[in-house]
């Protein structure tokens, strides 16, 4: 039963799916990064995509907003096919999304305020600047950074940058928020702050969230549903308990953070320090 569910992750959820991928394959040259992936993102839920580095998680999340176009397959937003739209049409669809990039992707030549009002400026005619200032204040307050309006990206810490980027992502009150590795490079406490923010936004704004991560603590905390990608395919799909007890050995290795026997064999073959490898101190004469 579960296996059937994992074969087509759009089944049983198509009616309340905000975004649907149908048979999406993505190739870069001869390398297949996504291999016939079908997936439905359910409204109001937080879907977490896990998987080892390089398995295609970021490529998958970029397909949800069509920052990358599939080599074959289809992408739908609210039952409208969007992967074949031109950029002008896509730009209108993208106003319904917020995207938190791995490094934040704040514009370093702009202040925090200017970063947050960037999408507002692009899509709305600003008549009342006092109202915009209030909006910036409220968005920053949501991420706990009110008072940082005049800071620049360079003077913020990694965690603060991600929170400002999140404030920017919610500036247009999007229906869907996509998070690409939101806790990468953060210490456990700041990672937990980001997890709490994701939960808060889902609770208060009712947004649909897709989180790409390999941080299992975060995945278990925020997910209504967890999907595991491996070699461009979905190999597990279900709630946190289903993933925790999944029989697939790759899933078990990943969620428990265990190295595989193949990787161990490679490490053994590559030799050891005791077998005569140089250390930095060998050159310190």
């Amino acid at each position: 039963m579960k296996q059937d569910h994992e074969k087509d992750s759009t089944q049983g959820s198509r009616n309340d799916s905000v975004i649907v991928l149908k048979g999406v394959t993505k190739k870069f040259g001869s390398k297949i990064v996504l291999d016939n992936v079908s997936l439905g993102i359910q409204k109001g839920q937080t879907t977490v995509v896990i998987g080892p580095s390089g398995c295609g998680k970021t490529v998958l999340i970029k397909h949800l907003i069509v920052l990358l176009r599939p080599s074959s397959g289809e992408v739908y937003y609210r039952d409208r096919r969007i992967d074949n739209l031109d950029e002008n049409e896509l730009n209108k669809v993208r106003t319904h999304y917020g995207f938190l990039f791995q490094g934040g992707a704040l514009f370093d030549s702009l202040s925090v305020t200017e970063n947050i009002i960037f999408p507002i400026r692009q899509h709305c005619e600003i008549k009342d600047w006092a109202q915009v200032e209030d909006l910036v204040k409220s968005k920053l307050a949501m991420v706990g950074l009110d008072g940082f309006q005049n800071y620049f990206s360079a003077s913020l810490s990694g965690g603060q940058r991600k929170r400002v980027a999140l404030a920017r992502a919610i500036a247009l009150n999007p229906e869907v928020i996509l998070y690409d590795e939101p806790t990468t490079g953060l210490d456990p406490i700041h990672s937990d702050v980001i997890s709490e923010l994701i939960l808060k936004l889902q609770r208060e704004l009712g947004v649909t969230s897709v989180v790409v991560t390999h941080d299992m603590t975060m995945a278990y905390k925020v997910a209504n549903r967890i999907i595991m990608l491996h070699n461009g395919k979905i190999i597990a799909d279900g709630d946190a308990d289903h993933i925790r007890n999944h029989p697939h050995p790759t899933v078990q290795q990943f969620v428990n953070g265990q190295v595989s026997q193949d990787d161990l064999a490679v490490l053994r073959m590559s030799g050891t320090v005791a077998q005569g490898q140089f250390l930095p101190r060998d050159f310190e004469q």
Partner: protein
Amino acid sequence: MIGAVGARTIGGVNDIGRFARFVWQSMIASFRTSLSPCTYPLIWTQMYIIGVRSVPVVMITGAFVGMTLAVQAYDQLAGMGLEEHLGVLINISVVKELGPVLAAVMLAGRIGGALTAELGTMNVTEQIDAVRSMGTDPIRYLAAPRVLACLLLTPFLIIFADLMGIIGGYFVSVVTLGINSRAYWSFSASGVELWDVSIGVVKGFFFGVALAVISCYKGFTCKEGARGVGQACTEAFVSSFFSILALDFALAVIFKSIYNTFWPLKSLV
């Protein structure tokens, strides 16, 4: 072997196609931006960075071109007793060819490198993807203001280079080499026409667009990492440099044909 040549050829054709598409999109975006007053602040900012800050570099280049021409040409003309014609040679060379080309090359180095590095860094740090994810066309937001700023200001910068070239040539010819000032200007005025000055300025529009579009394209398509950005900057300068030289040749042929069409007799004289 044949497969490798074929793959390289297909790759080259793809690159040309992508560049042509980028040029077309940049032109459309620039036209739309020029009609939209709300994007003017972006253009003013780029005009300040690209134009105002380049004035000293371009003026110094122009001055040295004029001074060097005077020193190099004096002996040949003096040998024939034509040293008072030095002004014609210097000024026509400066306003028609050397001023525009060398000013554009300096701009390709100063602005082109900076544009590519800035946009390349934005590309590798996903800032360009961030612009797209917020429903904004990055070519319209990032490339168009830079293209318009280069288009509008390169001709003005060339005028500055010409002016300093003329002053530099005059200074060396009259003050250092002792040529009669009145004769210098008199021969210059009779030899250099408004047409010659206009050619140089009109070339500036083409050079400005070429270096801006090439630099933006290299920034937008830059590969990841510090090495990728560095390589993109080098490629941007080299491509801009060759484009300026090729455009200069093409425009020289076109302007000569136009001149000969309208003033055939004068050309013969």
